[in-house]
């Protein structure tokens, strides 16, 4: 077996393009995944025209509220490109320099302030998008709409807090700042106390009874308005989110991305190499000569799977080492990585052997390997709940028949503690090794046909 292995490695070395692809491919994947998970999403460029005067403030009962910092809130989430006119904003959107433009008109604060008057206006902002790319335009519009919703919320919270302060003043009393000075407000509680003190001084009769009613009203109003304060603050954000995780051990996104990249590399390298190398034995007409007493078909299959596993192991570990530059990996679990890669590679190699034995020609095998591996990999990454129950059940059955998903589960579990158990996926992979090995052995019967 070792001489056949040496021969296959010599052939691989003689195919510089193939060898370079085998090394470059995982390096490229590692760099791309590394950058993707370590840099976070780029902010969309949005032209921003703020025509609101800098000293304009939302006012409540004649008092100006502190700034809600709407511009800062928006520009934290998108890359704001300052523009000086609407025409400049439109021009930038049209040229593609920015994805969209957001214009806060000069009268925006006045319109907001009018909401508390008898003649309420409609505060509006303008969003300009380029519809030539509907997908991008829709995504940008959604992002800006979400940002404006956040800005609305911030303003509402500010108003609620201020409103709550005034309410407190009415209940408990205090000083109300007016025109640089202050006006003392007695407050409902103090009013009730004064009235209660006056009540015994009055003779029994209709006047004392009326005063009693006013005192009772002041007490009740104070108590009821006391609970209105928090209610007003809640109105700004009536629905709170309480997140409960019942999914058990979902791996962090970074670990999952690394495991997916590693599994994809392992699957492609082993399936393509084993399938192609086995088909090459037939294309070179060497198979009948080999199995004429030199090597048994089982040993030949074993050699091909071993070739795939060794190459897959080297390439995948190289890729993980490359990813470690971007993301810290738990090197203390290295032995578990190796176990997952070896068994996952073994199952992918056995599947490659079955493909190679069935297709028999290198070109057909390469095409078949891509046609099988790529869709199975995509299906394996479909999360539960994103498609209908019936369809997801079908996907589960299909992905269970191929090594990608259990290999992904094994590598995810091996990379980091708390990402599920390793035993189940390894057992699944072991069963697939046996099943695909048997299929490959049966398909090899056709190899010998003259």
């Amino acid at each position: 077996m070792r001489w056949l292995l040496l021969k296959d490695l010599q052939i691989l070395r003689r195919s510089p393009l193939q060898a370079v692809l085998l090394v470059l491919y995982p390096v490229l994947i590692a760099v791309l995944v590394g950058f993707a998970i370590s840099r976070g999403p780029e902010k969309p460029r949005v032209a921003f025209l703020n025509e609101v005067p800098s000293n304009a403030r939302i006012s409540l009962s004649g008092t100006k509220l502190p700034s809600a910092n709407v511009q800062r809130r928006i520009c934290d989430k998108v890359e704001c490109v300052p523009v000086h006119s609407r025409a400049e904003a439109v021009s930038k959107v049209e040229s593609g320099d920015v994805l969209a433009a957001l214009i806060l008109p000069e009268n925006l604060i006045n319109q907001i302030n009018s909401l508390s008057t008898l003649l309420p206006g409609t505060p509006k902002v303008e969003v300009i998008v380029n519809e030539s790319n509907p997908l991008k335009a829709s995504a940008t519009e959604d992002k800006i709409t979400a940002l404006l919703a956040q800005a609305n919320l911030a303003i509402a919270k500010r108003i609620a807090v201020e409103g709550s302060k005034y309410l407190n003043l009415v209940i408990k009393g205090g000083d109300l700042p007016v025109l640089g000075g202050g006006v003392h407000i007695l407050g409902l509680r103090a009013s009730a106390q004064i009235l209660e003190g006056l009540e015994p001084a009055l003779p029994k009769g209709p006047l004392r009874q009326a005063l009693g009613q006013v005192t009772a009203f002041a007490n009740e109003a104070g108590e009821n308005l006391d609970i209105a304060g928090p209610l007003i603050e809640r109105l700004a954000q009536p629905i709170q989110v309480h997140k409960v995780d019942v999914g058990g051990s979902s791996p962090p996104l970074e670990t999952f991305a690394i495991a997916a990249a590693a599994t994809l590399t392992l699957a492609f390298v082993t399936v393509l190499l084993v399938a192609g190398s086995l088909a090459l034995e037939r294309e070179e007409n060497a198979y009948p000569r080999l199995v004429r007493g030199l090597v048994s078909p089982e040993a030949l299959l074993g050699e091909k799977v071993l070739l795939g596993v060794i190459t897959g192991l080297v390439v995948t570990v190289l890729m993980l080492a490359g990813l470690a530059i971007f993301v810290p990996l738990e090197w203390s679990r290295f032995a578990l990585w190796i176990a997952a890669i070896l068994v996952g590679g073994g199952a992918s190699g056995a599947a490659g052997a079955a493909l190679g034995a069935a297709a028999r020609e290198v070109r057909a095998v390469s095409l078949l390997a891509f046609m099988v591996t790529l869709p199975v990999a995509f299906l394996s990454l479909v999360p539960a709940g994103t498609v209908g129950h019936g369809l997801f059940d079908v996907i589960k059955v299909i992905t269970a028949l191929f090594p990608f998903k259990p290999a992904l589960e094994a590598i995810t579990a091996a990379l980091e503690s708390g990402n599920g158990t390793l035993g189940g996926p390894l057992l699944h992979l072991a069963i697939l090794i046996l099943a695909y090995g048997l299929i490959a052995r049966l398909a090899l019967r056709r190899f010998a046909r003259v």
Partner: protein
Amino acid sequence: MQARGLVKRFGDREALKGVSFEAAPGELVAVIGPNGAGKTTLLSILAGILKADGGDVDVAEGAVGWVPQQAALYRRLTVEENLLLFARLEKHPDPHASVEEMLELSGLGERRGEVVARLSGGNQQRINIAIGLLSRPSVLLLDEPSVGLDPRQRARLWKFVSGLAVRGTTVIFSTHDIQEAERYGRRMLVLADGEALFDGSADELREAVREDAVDPAAADRDFETAFVTYLQHRGH
């Protein structure tokens, strides 16, 4: 080598219908016949690639070297690497010495470091045969060895093969080239539709055509005409 009553079926089709023959040491036997006659099937059974459904082959284990119709070589390996691989797989005690011997025998010593894909079809076939000889077989089976070779390469190939026979190797080869069979085959086994119609020398086949008395003149024309006439008289 002795073959007795060999039968092979592929589904409903009977590819060999009880073929028997024998070959002595140093003999060059040409297996000829029209397409689908069963030549490759016969050689594959003798080589142990296919199992016969009936009959048996009497030959010592490991005594048969087999050279398939298309060169069974790794084209990305060099001449030497190919020979060394098969010598190692044959478990030769000194594989490097065996490689040297085969390089000398095939006359490709100077091209040992060349990748097989860059060699001519004739030279590839010589390596193909050299690999078949690595096991030092007493019987060498060649399936259409000269297909695709130019006349010069063919002449060089047959000089090489004849040399093996002179050294005592039994050579059994199939061919479509009737003139080649006459020139190099000491004996001819004519197959048609899975049956062995004739087993003898070229002169004996001409004599058989003459004895048919349908077109006796055909026996004195070229050997291909005599061969075709022989087949036609027997309904093939």
